[in-house]
């Protein structure tokens, strides 16, 4: 089944689900739902908190979309097929989010909603940097 509706409605609906997920994690587990932080802590085992919880969260994050796609069309990711693009972007996202201690979910969704200065400033910086990168690579150099 394909859900046909304007993009902004599915965006808002999906956004509400993301926010609800963050609210459950915050009120239920007393933690900020940040994707980079949860993955990063599993990778470098830097957290004394129950690791099982992080692993369960990540497994559910991977598996739920797979189950969901049995009934609803989850479109392709349209990710570039250029390995240089994929690997350089992956490295930058990995290093950047761990240096900044957060990504779109932690600094963006969870940070802005509590009016955290770090969340607001980080979101401003990564959106500006992303916009500049697209402008440079797509419109000036014509690479992507």
């Amino acid at each position, binding site marked *: 089944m394909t859900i046909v509706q304007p993009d902004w409605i*599915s*965006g808002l609906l*999906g*956004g*509400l689900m*993301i*926010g609800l*997920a*963050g*609210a459950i*994690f*915050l*009120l*239920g*587990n*007393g933690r900020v739902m940040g994707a*980079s932080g949860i993955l*990063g802590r599993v990778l*470098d085992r830097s957290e004394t908190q129950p690791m099982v*919880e992080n692993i369960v969260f990540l497994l*559910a*994050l991977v598996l*739920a*979309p797979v189950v969901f796609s049995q009934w609803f069309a989850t479109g392709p*990711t*349209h*990710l*570039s097929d250029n*390995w240089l693009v994929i*690997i*350089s*972007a*992956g*490295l*930058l*996202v*990995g*290093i*950047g*989010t761990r*240096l*900044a201690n957060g*990504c*779109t979910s932690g600094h963006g969704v969870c940070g802005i909603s509590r009016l955290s*200065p*770090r*969340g607001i*400033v*980080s979101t401003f*910086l*990564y*959106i*500006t*940097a*992303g*916009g*500049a990168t*697209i*402008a440079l690579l797509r*419109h000036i150099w014509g690479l992507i």
Partner: protein
Amino acid sequence: MRIVFALISGALFGIGLCVSGMTNTLKVQGWLDIFGAWDPTLAFVMGGAILPMAVAWRMLKNQSPQPAIAQTTSSTALFDRQFVIGSVLFGAGWGIAGLCPGPAIASLGFGGIGGVVFLLAMAAGMLMTPRIKARLTAAAPI
């Protein structure tokens, strides 16, 4: 119970990312592409996600005793070098591929080999970070 909350939260986060279109790199890059065919969807996703979260933070404040997370102060502005450099590097990578950590993990099951390679590169970057952090602090201790 914590495990159950983690399970529900992770699943809902994953489905929300798919429904919102944020696992589609073209929509994310469209949001960042202000000189091209600009796509405002991400703003609706952010807005939609911030609403329940704002309510949750408020509910947390009214709890007594205050849970630890409510006390981890968000007002001490720590805009050090690694925070600024990290945010900018993340943004650049986000723009290049159109994937941030949440959608990268959520699309692992249907994103093909490219998605797997992205996740591996991202994990490698995360594992490299403590060394980069050490170098940054050594250069100019803050």
